[in-house]
C-alpha cells in the first residue's frame, strides 16, 4: 500500500486547539487563584516526569484508544455509535469468564480470554445494529438503552455468576495464565498495550486498504454515492458495529487481564465504568482516525495521570482538574463537531 497520510493538517489543527484549551484552562485556574504555570508544570511532570509515569500515562491511554475506535468507526460509517460503554462491560464479562473460570495452557489462555471479551463486545453491539437494520431504530437511542441494560446485566452477572466467593467486592480474578505480563513493577502498564495498538493499526489498514473498508467509509461519507456504487447499506451498519464492538470488548478485556492490581471486574463495574464514554471525546480529538485516536488517547492518558500531581502539588482542586480536562476536550472537539455539522448541512 502506498503511503496515504491524511494526518498532517488535522494534526496541526488538533495541536492548535490543544494550545487554546490549555490557555483557557490557565485563565480558569488564574481566576480561581492558582498558578497556571505551577499547575501545568506539575501536570507535565506528573505525566512524563519519570519513566514509570510515562508508562502509567500509557496505561491510562490503552482502553481509551480502543473505545475511541468504536466511536470513530461508527462515525466513519455515518453512525453515531455511543454504545462503547455497554459493549465494553460485556467485553469485561466475557474476558472475566474465560480468564477466571476456565483453565487453559499459558499463551492460549490469554488469547482465548482476549478473544472472548472481543466477541462478547461484538455480540452486544449486534443488538443496536440489528435493530437499525430490521426496524430502523436510530442507533443513538438503541445504544444508550443498550448501555443501561449492559450495566445492570453485567452487574448481575458479575455478582451472581462470576462473583469471587471469598471477596464480596469483585469477580473471580483472572488466573495467572490469562494475565498480560506487567511491563514494570512501578506502573500498571501491561503487554496488552501492544494488542491495543496492533488492533487500532489493523483497523486503520482495514478501513483504508480493503474494499470493505472503502465501502464502509463511503457509506458514512455519502450514503447516496454508496448506493450508486452498489454498496449494501445494511452490511456497512453491521460491519461498523462489529468492529466497534470488538474494539470496545478489547477495551473491557484490557482492564481485566491487562491492568493490575485487581485482575478482575469490580462488582460496581468501577474499574471499567466511563471508559466508553471517555472514548467519544478521545475520538473527536483524534479526528475519528484510528491512528489519531492513539495519539489522542496518549493525551488523555497524560491528563488523567498527570492531573493527580497537579492536584497534589499545585493544590488544584480535583473538580477544577476535571473542569480543565473538560475545557481541553471541548476545545479539541469543536473543529471536529463543526466539520461534522458542515458535512451534514452540505448534504
Amino acid at each position, binding site marked *: 500500500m502506498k503511503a496515504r497520510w491524511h494526518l498532517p493538517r488535522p494534526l496541526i489543527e488538533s495541536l492548535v486547539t490543544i494550545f487554546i484549551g490549555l490557555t483557557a484552562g490557565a485563565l480558569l485556574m488564574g481566576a480561581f487563584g492558582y498558578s497556571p504555570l505551577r499547575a501545568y508544570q506539575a501536570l507535565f511532570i506528573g505525566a512524563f516526569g519519570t519513566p514509570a509515569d510515562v508508562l502509567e500515562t500509557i496505561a491510562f491511554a490503552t482502553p481509551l484508544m480502543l473505545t475511541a475506535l468504536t466511536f470513530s468507526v461508527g462515525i466513519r460509517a455515518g453512525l453515531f455509535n455511543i454504545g462503547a460503554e455497554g459493549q465494553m462491560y460485556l467485553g469485561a464479562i466475557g474476558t472475566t469468564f474465560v480468564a477466571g473460570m476456565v483453565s487453559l495452557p499459558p499463551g492460549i489462555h490469554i488469547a482465548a480470554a482476549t478473544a472472548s471479551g472481543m466477541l462478547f463486545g461484538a455480540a452486544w453491539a449486534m443488538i443496536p445494529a440489528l435493530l437499525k437494520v430490521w426496524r430502523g431504530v436510530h442507533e443513538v437511542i438503541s445504544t444508550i438503552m443498550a448501555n443501561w441494560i449492559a450495566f445492570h446485566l453485567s452487574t448481575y452477572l458479575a*455478582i451472581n455468576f462470576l462473583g469471587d*466467593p471469598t471477596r464480596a467486592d469483585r469477580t473471580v480474578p483472572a488466573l495467572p495464565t490469562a494475565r498480560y505480563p506487567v511491563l514494570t513493577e512501578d506502573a500498571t502498564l501491561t503487554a496488552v498495550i501492544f494488542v491495543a495498538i496492533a488492533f487500532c493499526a489493523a483497523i486503520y489498514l482495514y478501513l483504508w486498504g480493503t474494499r470493505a473498508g472503502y465501502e464502509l467509509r463511503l457509506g458514512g461519507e455519502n450514503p447516496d454515492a454508496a448506493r450508486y456504487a452498489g454498496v449494501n447499506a445494511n452490511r456497512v451498519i453491521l460491519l461498523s458495529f462489529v468492529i466497534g464492538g470488538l474494539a470496545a470488548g478489547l477495551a473491557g478485556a484490557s482492564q481485566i487481564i491487562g491492568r493490575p*492490581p485487581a485482575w478482575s471486574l469490580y462488582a460496581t463495574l468501577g474499574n471499567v465504568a466511563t471508559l466508553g464514554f471517555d472514548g467519544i471525546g478521545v475520538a473527536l480529538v483524534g479526528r475519528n482516525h484510528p491512528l489519531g485516536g492513539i495519539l489522542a488517547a496518549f493525551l488523555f492518558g497524560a491528563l488523567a495521570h498527570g492531573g493527580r500531581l497537579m492536584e497534589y502539588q499545585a493544590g488544584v482542586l480535583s473538580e477544577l482538574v476535571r473542569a480543565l480536562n473538560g475545557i481541553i476536550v471541548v476545545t479539541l472537539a469543536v473543529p471536529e463537531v463543526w466539520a461534522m455539522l458542515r458535512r451534514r448541512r452540505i448534504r
Partner: protein
Amino acid sequence: MVELISKVEADYVPNLTTAARDPDVQLIVGVGFLLSDALAQVAQRFPNKNFVGIDTFAQSIIKEKFPAKYPLPNLMDIVYEEHKGSALVGALATLLAAHYNKPYIGGVFGIEIPVLWKFEIGYKWGARWATEWMFKNKPDKAFKYRTDFVLWTYTGTFSDIPKGYAAAKAMYAKDAVAVYNIAGPLGLGINQAVQEIAKARGLKMGPPFWIGVDANQDWINPGFVIASMMKRVDKGVYYATKFVKDGKFRDLVKQTKGTLVLGIGTKVAGELTEGISVSTLADLDEFIKMGQTAEKLTGKKVLPAPPAEIRAKVKAMREAQPQWIWAAVAELEKKIREGTVTVPLVLTKPDIEKWRKELG
C-alpha cells in the same frame, strides 16, 4: 494533609503511589473497600510508609498471595461492624411499627453489591429480634415476624436521587413506618418522599420516619429522621493518625494481624475503640457544630434551621416515642456487646440466599 480523589478505579494505585512518593508523608489513608488490592500492592512497594485502609481487606489479600509477608507491618485495615448497627436500627424501626400499628418497615439500597448484604441482613435480623422481644415484653402489641415485613429495594444507583424517592414513596404508600437509607445521597430522595407526606398531612414529626446511615443525618429533616446508623470513619482515621504519632502503629499491626475492627464494644490494647452506634442527641450536637463550621467556611447555608431549633425538634421527636422502645434498643446493644446474641455477618452468595429465605 493532602487529599487525592480517585475519579476511577484505575486511579487507586497511581494516587497512592503519588502520595507515598512524597517524602513528607508518613501515613496514607485509602478510603473504601475497592482500594484493597491497590493498598496491598503499594504498601509493599513503600515499606517505610504507613498505610491505612478504611473498609478494606488488604491484609487478607497479602495473606492469600504472599503468606510469608503476612501481616505486612506497615498496613492496617480498619473495618466496621455495620451489620450490628443495622440490627439496632432494624429493631428500632420494628418497635416503632408495633407502637404505631404499622404493617411494614423499609430499606432503600444502592447498587446490589455484596458489601450491602450485611446491612440488609443485619437490618432484617434486628427486625425479627424486635418482634421476639415484643412477645416477651409487650405481648399486647406483639406480632409475628413475616418475611414480607421488611420492604427492601436495590435501586441500582448510589447517585440517582429520584430513584431513592420513587422507592421510598412506594414503601410509605404501603404505610411503612420508617425507611432505612443504605444508599448515601439517595437519602435525600427518601427525605423528599417523607416531606411530601408531612406537608399533605400537616405533620410536625413522624411517623413516617426515615433512618440515616454512616454520618448522623438526623439534622437533615428534624423530627422525621428517627435516628442514624453511625459509622465513624473519622474516628478510624483519628485512631490511625494517633497510633502513628504515638509510634504504636506497627506494634498494633502486629497485635491485630493488621485488621482493626471498630464496632460495638470493640477494644484495641485494652482501650475501647468503637466506631458503630445509633445516633444520640449528643452526636447531633457534634454534627450541628460541623455544619456551623461548614457554613462559616463556605458562606453557604448548610443547616435547614437554627441549631437550637434543630436540637429542640429532634429532642421532642425522640421524647414523643415511648421510653420502652429506646430501652429495647439499648437492651439489644448491650446483648450484642456482651455477645449473648450474634448478628449474622453476610458476605457471600450462599449466605445471603440462606438468610433471605429465613428473613425475607
